[in-house]
């Protein structure tokens, strides 16, 4: 039964995220005062790439793509999707963070297997950026886990719902929410932090050698990774909720990300690291100190 639920989460998540991706392209177009593509454009792109031919650069190249897609889908299975939890008791923050790395590392392995120099530079930038955004995010979430004594995501979402809307962590831990939102921008590699995929300088970075089916699978991987990352933010700071509330919150967070990315310029990679290690890390340390020493912001 739980496998059936996990499978339906994957299907619903795929349909939701990919159509939302098309809607976000429409939103970006409205910001630019254009008409923009139809909302189903993202589906068209994915099915088109899957219908093209592709070449292989060796076993590691093929295997890494499958590892990235499989690892990310496996991560999604453990994430609470609204109040639907596929594997009860296993929706642990550590499980998700650990498994999410499998996806990125699979992609890194595969891209460096392609032997292109741009791919190598892109991977280096992606891992550097990961080092930058993970630290402040982890500090905030570990403070939260310390305060409640549990790392179960559905548990953390549940404690926020007890005091109504004002009990959400975005209101009780505002500094932490800001930090997590900035980290979310870094995780999604959206424009202020899209140094790994810099089409203007390193020709799409890790993706440079991917075409056809391999590229389609990586687009899918990116969509599922987006589901997990935005889902983490919604569960940790916006209080989860039932399926409908969850999807609405997801939509709002993702639209905010899109609005920010459609009007901003890009950081260089060293700016990304210095930025994350300067502002968000200080905010996260302040937030964690408040939570640990005063207990302010913790719902009891």
């Amino acid at each position, binding site marked *: 039964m739980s496998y059936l639920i996990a499978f339906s989460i994957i299907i619903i998540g795929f349909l939701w995220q990919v159509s939302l991706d098309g809607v976000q*392209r429409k939103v970006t*177009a409205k910001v*630019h*005062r*254009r*008409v*923009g*593509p*139809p909302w189903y*454009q993202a589906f*068209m*792109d994915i*099915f*088109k*790439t899957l*219908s*093209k*031919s*592709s*070449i292989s650069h060796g076993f590691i190249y093929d295997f890494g793509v499958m590892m990235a897609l499989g690892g990310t889908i496996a991560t999604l299975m453990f994430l609470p999707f609204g109040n639907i939890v596929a594997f009860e008791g296993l929706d642990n923050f550590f499980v998700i963070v650990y498994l999410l790395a499998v996806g990125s590392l699979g992609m890194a392995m595969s891209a460096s297997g392609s032997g292109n120099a741009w791919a190598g530079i892109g991977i280096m930038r992606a891992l550097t950026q990961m080092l930058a955004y993970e630290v402040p995010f982890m500090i905030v979430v570990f403070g939260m886990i310390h305060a409640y004594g549990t790392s179960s995501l559905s548990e953390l979402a549940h404690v926020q719902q007890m005091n109504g809307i004002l009990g959400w962590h975005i209101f009780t831990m505002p500094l932490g929410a800001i930090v997590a939102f900035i980290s979310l921008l870094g995780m999604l590699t959206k424009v202020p932090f899209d140094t790994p995929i810099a*089409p*203007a300088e390193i*020709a*799409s970075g890790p*993706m*440079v*050698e*991917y*075409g*056809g089916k391999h*590229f389609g699978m990586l687009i899918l991987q990116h969509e599922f990774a987006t589901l997990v990352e935005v889902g983490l933010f919604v569960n940790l700071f916006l209080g989860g909720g039932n399926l409908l509330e969850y999807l609405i919150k997801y939509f709002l967070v993702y639209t905010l990300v899109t609005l920010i990315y459609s009007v901003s310029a890009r950081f260089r990679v060293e700016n990304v690291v210095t930025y994350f290690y300067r502002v968000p890390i200080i905010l996260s340390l302040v937030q964690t100190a408040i939570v640990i020493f005063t207990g302010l912001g913790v719902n009891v």
Partner: protein
Amino acid sequence: MSNKDQIKEINVFEEDLNDTITFWEKIRNIFRGKSLWMLHYCTGCGAVELPPTMTARFDMERLGMGPMATPRQADVLLVTGYLSVKTLRRVIYTYEQMMFPKYLVGFGSCTINGGIYYDSYAVINRLDYYLPVDLYVAGCMPRPEAIMNTFKTLENMITKGEANGWKKYVENYEWYRENQIRSLGEVYVKDEFHE
């Protein structure tokens, strides 16, 4: 390296090479027509017409088109203007790196008959001796309206299964390669930065 080896490393759908169109191929063609990614590699003066086509006024993204930075991901190669022999070499490398199915659009009179460079020793006259062109845009240079119209036509051609330039290239590779070698000397150079 023989000619056969270069083509063999790319994996073509066997049924795509047929002229008869099956049901699944029709569906595939719809997806291929609705989502065209162009290679952001511009040669000659026609490149000037592309920024207005891409940005807010003419908005290429309405047709599902967008620029891609690398030939592996691209579907359409735009040859925007005259091609000197040196540029032709790069264009051929780029075209051969793209994944099947791929389409090629020639801009302006230079790709049709050499344009104002028809008697230059350094510029090629007809593009379709060297690469299979699916569609030409007339004009010197074409306005963004003409370019958008061309993309719409290309989309319809792909949906109907008429944009067969890449099939021609696979089937008549010997002929294209002879022409390429006659103009360029040698086409396939692995380390192109130290040739």
